């Protein structure tokens, strides 16, 4: 069986400096795969190359299609969606406009977009309360929710999440991971980059550990959680 997303020996460089060096990973449809690793390991770089924000060498195949020749917008149209580390919201537009623009690629499906908007507001009640507020004036946590909500409006088939729990209060972090797990059961595949290794490993099916641009370990998430090296480095000796 061929994978839903297959990344094969990709290299990504900033000028002369290679930030990702020969990384291969695969993700089956309906899975959550997580990539963990220290700061500067190349996790964000990997996601940005996958969506097409950065040029890369190597093969990226999504649902049987070679992505290399496709522009970002074409990848988005095929069901790929990135929640970037810097969120990239439309600060001077309202919450509701940000969400509607999330569905830009499927804007002709008015009925579907309306339903999804209601679903997002159900999931994130805070966003519903602030629907007419400008995105730039939201709190950090609300902004994270908006970024995730905007991505969901695209009805992605594969969601690329860059540190969705960054800077959130513990209670909200738990909520975010609950949502991630519930997305999987509604058929969305997820490639999850996280600093919160414990929560990521608990939620994911499979995990890769990225160190200085290369895969250092990989395996079933449940197994990595008990791997002594991973426990010592990323789980602070607990678990």
């Amino acid at each position, binding site marked *: 069986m061929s994978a839903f997303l297959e990344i094969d020996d990709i290299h990504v460089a900033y000028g002369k400096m290679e930030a990702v060096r020969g990384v291969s990973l695969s993700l089956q449809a309906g899975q959550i795969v997580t990539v963990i690793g220290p700061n500067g390991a190349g996790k964000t770089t990997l996601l940005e190359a996958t*969506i097409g*924000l950065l040029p890369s060498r190597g093969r990226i195949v999504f649902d049987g299609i070679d992505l290399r*020749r496709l*522009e*970002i*917008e074409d990848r*988005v*149209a095929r069901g790929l*969606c*990135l929640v*970037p580390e810097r969120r*990239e*919201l*439309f*600060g*001077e*537009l309202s919450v509701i*406009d940000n969400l*509607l*623009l*999330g*569905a*830009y*690629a499927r*804007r002709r499906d008015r009925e579907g977009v309306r339903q999804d908007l209601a679903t997002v507001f159900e999931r994130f009640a805070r966003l519903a309360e602030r629907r007419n507020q400008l995105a730039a004036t939201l709190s950090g946590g609300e902004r994270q929710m908006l970024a995730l909500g*905007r991505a969901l409006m*695209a009805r992605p088939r594969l969601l690329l999440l860059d540190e969705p729990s960054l800077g959130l209060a513990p209670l909200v972090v738990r909520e975010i991971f609950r949502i991630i797990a519930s997305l999987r059961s509604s058929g969305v595949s997820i490639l999850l980059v996280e600093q919160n290794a414990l929560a990521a490993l608990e939620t994911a099916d499979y995990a890769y550990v990225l160190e200085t641009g290369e895969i250092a370990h990989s395996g079933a998430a449940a197994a990595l959680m008990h791997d002594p090296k991973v426990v010592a480095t990323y789980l602070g000796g607990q678990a």
Partner: protein
Amino acid sequence: MNLEIALLLAQDGIANGAIYVLVALGTVLIFTVTRVIFVPFGDIAAYAALTLASFQLERTPGTIWLVMTLAGLALAMEVYTLLRRGEAHRLPMALLHYAVLPLIPIAAVWIVGGQRLPMAAEIALALALVMPIAPLLYRIAFRPLADAPVLVLLIVALAVHFAISGLALLFFGPEGFRTEPLTRAMFTIGTIVITGQSLLIVGASIVFGLLLFLFFGRTMAGKALRATAINRTGARLVGIRPAAAGELAFLLASVLAGTSGILIGPVATLYYDSGFILGLKAFVGAIIGGLVSYPVAALGAVFVGLLESYASFWNSSLKEVVVFASLIPVLLWRSLTFAHLEDEDEAEDAA
């Protein structure tokens, strides 16, 4: 100066200002979406007026040659890009977009063949003929440079201005034109006479201002343009193509510039190079709004019109000096009170 003269000058100034409003709004629209300070924008207005004048003199406007050349170039570039990327299936769409659509008004001109039409039809045809120019220029000169710094884009815009105003000399000759009046109506209020023409100009800029407001606030396409202006990366991530947004911005702005040309045609004698000064004055207005705020740009444009009108009463040979000298305090004030938008933009692009 007594009150009557002051009011007369105000009427003049507001009518002029309303023309600048249309051009200033277009300048802001193009800049925010594509970061291009589109210097030839006033030339587009001049082309519209000169094209209409050609119809009225029963001549074939040289505009058709410009549009055909630009369409040919744009199509060639698009075909090359698509083939290199292996996207041959997009060729029919490109053909429709860059060859068929711009050629429709040209075909209409040929069919009409120098006969007079009703005034409204001639105006519509002149606008339709001029509308593709800016989007085609965008495809040819600016889209390939989408990631270039603002300064590079400005230099290219200057070069494009010299090219198309030079071509206007070739097409329309060195003499000036005035188009037929759109209305001869006059209204008297007390001792003041208000011309129908100036009411038309002010009305048009109010209507276009409102339409733009509705477009940005109510339609998905309008929001997509604003999203592109606010955050290019974010826009791409939700599937908005910057190239398509840029083309739409140039097209809408062309409607504004073309309309301003048609409105100014009957009240000012226009030459092949009159567009530059028009564009520059509107630019002063737009700068007052920091090139990003539509309402402030519109107010700024009215201010420029008034300033020009009063300055010409005191010393008509110095009116341009006064208008452009006013740019200095405006720029000083902006640089002292506002963050440097351009630097911010550049930093974001680098990141």
